[in-house]
């Protein structure tokens, strides 16, 4: 996607923006300290599932918005995969027009309340902010994004994007994760008749089954889905494309175009001896039980989860961090431990999450790897044999490759293990669509410009194309795919 700098310039030249810019000298703006996100207290919040970040107050948001210099060439925008007009929405906040700010966000981002919470901002928009050049903390773009979209939702004045008259072209979206939702929204605006098919009994993909309530309350995802419904997107749950019905059957029903956003939902295990012992979970199972099935409310809810005092989570990504913080909240007060084979620098999890985890009393056992699980007479895991690691030469990923230190094995007593080392692409769609090109990692092959697969009327994006990536990249794919799908149907 390319940024339309001309349009941005025009917006920036508006009188109110100019006046706002002049009202405070840049020097003064840069003296303001970056806002601190109000958080619930670590030792209280690690016992409940309420959201950790409380959100900025109106006063805080306006002050933070003043820090943004409204740069003539806003470098921040190039760091955002959906190219949000960042100064545009921030200046609306400074002006006090929060609803208008939310509208600017929605022009290019269908799920701003989600992204404001879970985007790795520190590596994206905020990394490109001019403040970094001044050796100062960047503008808190993510916090402000969250503020404006929360404001809109909380006042109930949600703007529904305009939708063109129906062109009677039926489009099926497979999977309701962020890529599918974004694609659906964009196509719907253009007048297509879009239906989303979802295998599970709730919509949102990882946003509802993976990312915990304390980071992303489910009511926010639901609100975003309601907006799409109001625009006219149809939602069909409990429907697995490739099983409930195949693509051919959907074609018979009149669907002419498809978007595959089926994600990377397959848990990976390490094939370590004892991995199938009782009380060893994949993080997908652990998080799905707790988030999607609400097992943390068992027995009020019917789905159980084992609550234990000592829990070890294997891995260093967002999934592992979410699992270990969940374990803590379920009562792991004798140890909620991350076991990670590289060092903390290499951890793929967001910095904010690692920081929050530490505050909440999570222990980190780095440069350590499980080599065997040992069970009791009932087949329940009781110990992990771990091995110490050291970092060798960098591997293909550029990170230094961990190597085992011989003879360094020792045992850790444990009640539950959660394996959170990552997921693989869901094989169902690649297997059931005849003739579609698949990489050796099981991801779908697409043209990176058009997100078109080897079958012209099938587009794809998100984790089924990228392997495990991020919400905002999945959404960027959805937007790109919609643009090119539209071109495809116009030229057809």
């Amino acid at each position: 996607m390319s940024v339309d700098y001309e349009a941005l310039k025009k917006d920036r030249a508006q009188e109110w923006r100019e006046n706002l810019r002049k009202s405070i000298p840049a020097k003064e703006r840069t003296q303001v300290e970056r806002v601190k996100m109000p958080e619930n207290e670590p030792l209280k919040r690690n016992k409940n599932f309420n959201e950790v970040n409380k959100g900025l107050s109106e006063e805080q948001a306006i002050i933070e918005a003043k820090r943004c210099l409204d740069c003539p060439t806003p470098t921040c925008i190039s760091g955002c995969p959906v190219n949000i007009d960042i100064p545009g929405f921030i200046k609306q906040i400074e002006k006090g027009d929060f609803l208008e700010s939310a509208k600017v966000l929605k022009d290019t981002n269908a799920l701003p309340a989600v992204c404001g919470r879970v985007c790795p901002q520190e590596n994206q928009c905020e990394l490109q902010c001019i403040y970094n050049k001044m050796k100062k903390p960047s503008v808190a773009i993510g916090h402000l994004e969250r503020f404006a979209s929360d404001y809109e939702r909380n006042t109930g004045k949600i703007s529904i994007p305009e939708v063109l008259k129906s062109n009677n072209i039926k489009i099926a979206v497979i999977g309701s994760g962020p890529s599918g939702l974004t694609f659906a929204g964009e196509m719907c605006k253009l007048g297509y008749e879009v239906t989303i098919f979802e295998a599970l009994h709730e919509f949102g993909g990882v946003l509802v089954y993976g990312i915990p309530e304390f980071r992303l309350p489910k009511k926010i995802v639901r609100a975003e889905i309601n907006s799409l419904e109001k625009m006219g997107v149809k939602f069909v749950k409990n429907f697995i494309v490739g099983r409930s019905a195949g693509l051919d059957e959907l074609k018979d029903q009149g669907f002419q175009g498809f978007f595959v956003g089926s994600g990377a939902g397959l848990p990976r295990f390490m094939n370590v001896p004892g991995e199938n012992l009782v009380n060893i979970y994949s993080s997908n199972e652990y998080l799905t039980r707790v988030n999607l099935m609400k097992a943390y409310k068992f027995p009020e809810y019917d789905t159980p989860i084992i609550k234990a005092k000592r829990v070890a989570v294997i891995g260093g990504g967002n999934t592992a961090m979410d699992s270990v913080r969940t374990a803590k909240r379920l009562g792991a007060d004798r140890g909620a431990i991350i076991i990670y084979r590289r060092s903390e620098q290499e951890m793929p999890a967001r910095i904010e999450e690692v920081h929050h985890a530490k505050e909440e009393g999570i222990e980190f056992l780095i440069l350590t790897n499980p080599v065997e699980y040992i069970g009791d007479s009932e087949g329940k895991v009781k110990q992990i044999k771990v091995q110490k690691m050291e970092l060798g030469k960098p591997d293909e990923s550029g990170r230094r490759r961990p190597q085992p230190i011989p003879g360094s094995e020792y045992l850790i007593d444990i009640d539950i293990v959660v394996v959170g080392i990552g997921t693989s692409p869901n094989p169902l769609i690649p297997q059931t669509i005849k003739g579609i090109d698949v990489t050796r990692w099981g991801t779908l092959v697409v043209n990176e410009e058009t997100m078109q697969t080897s079958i012209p009327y099938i587009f794809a994006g998100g984790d089924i194309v990228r392997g495990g990536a991020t919400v905002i990249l999945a959404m960027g794919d959805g937007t790109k795919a919609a643009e090119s799908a539209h071109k495809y149907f116009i030229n057809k």
Partner: protein
Amino acid sequence: MYKVIEKTILSENVAKLIIENKTIAKNRKPGQFVIIKMGEIGERIPLTIADADPEKGTITIIVQKVGTSSHKLFNLNAGDHISDLVGPLGQPTEVEKVGTVIAAGGGVGVAPLYPIAKAFKEAGNKLITILAARTKDLIILENEMKEFSDEFMIMTDDGSYGKKGLITAGIEEIINREKVDMVICLGPAIMMKFIALLTRKHNIHTIASLNTIMVDGTGMCGACRVTVGGKTKFVCVDGPEFNAHEVDFDEMLKRLNAYKKEEETSYSKYLKDLK
């Protein structure tokens, strides 16, 4: 929402439900199952599609109440609605003509055995059906299975009906009498374990349909994993049927007991709330 069209009580703890679902009725094959969730607080439980009527757009399931969720399902009546129903899941049975086939079902394993046995009969095999249960009242689908079986036998642990003894005794009797080409077994894991031990001794190809604990049923969580032939398999997508001689039943038995305590808590709460 999916409407319950008809309900029949088959025994004290077992009911047959006919449920509306056009898509599944049209596309399901023998051996496949569905996942049902009842209401906001409900859990997702797997149930075999015992039968389907593509014309009427209905599927049949047979449920035995063993805990909270199965009891909830058992208590539904014609006209009630099920909030979530997804399928068909799992690999269909590979039905082929092999010669003489024993279909051995224990307890509620008889329900999922029914469509598989029927399919094997229709494929031209000689079908010998053996149903087993602890006691007479727990035998289900007797007439339905008898109808298409070439030979039919009942075994009860206490001798209150049919022959007295374990199902393995019945199978062995037949193996000693005539050439058996294949055994299909479905029931409690412990029963399948002993059947597998027996038929391995006689070198008879044996298929077991596994009923592990599941959550999503789509390959996403790994709750249903078992070791088969030394490799980890997901029952919901790789199965539910496997070569019984390769299944690590001891591991499976332990994994089935993972939530024993929680299940008891949940069920006693449910029974109390019912009153």
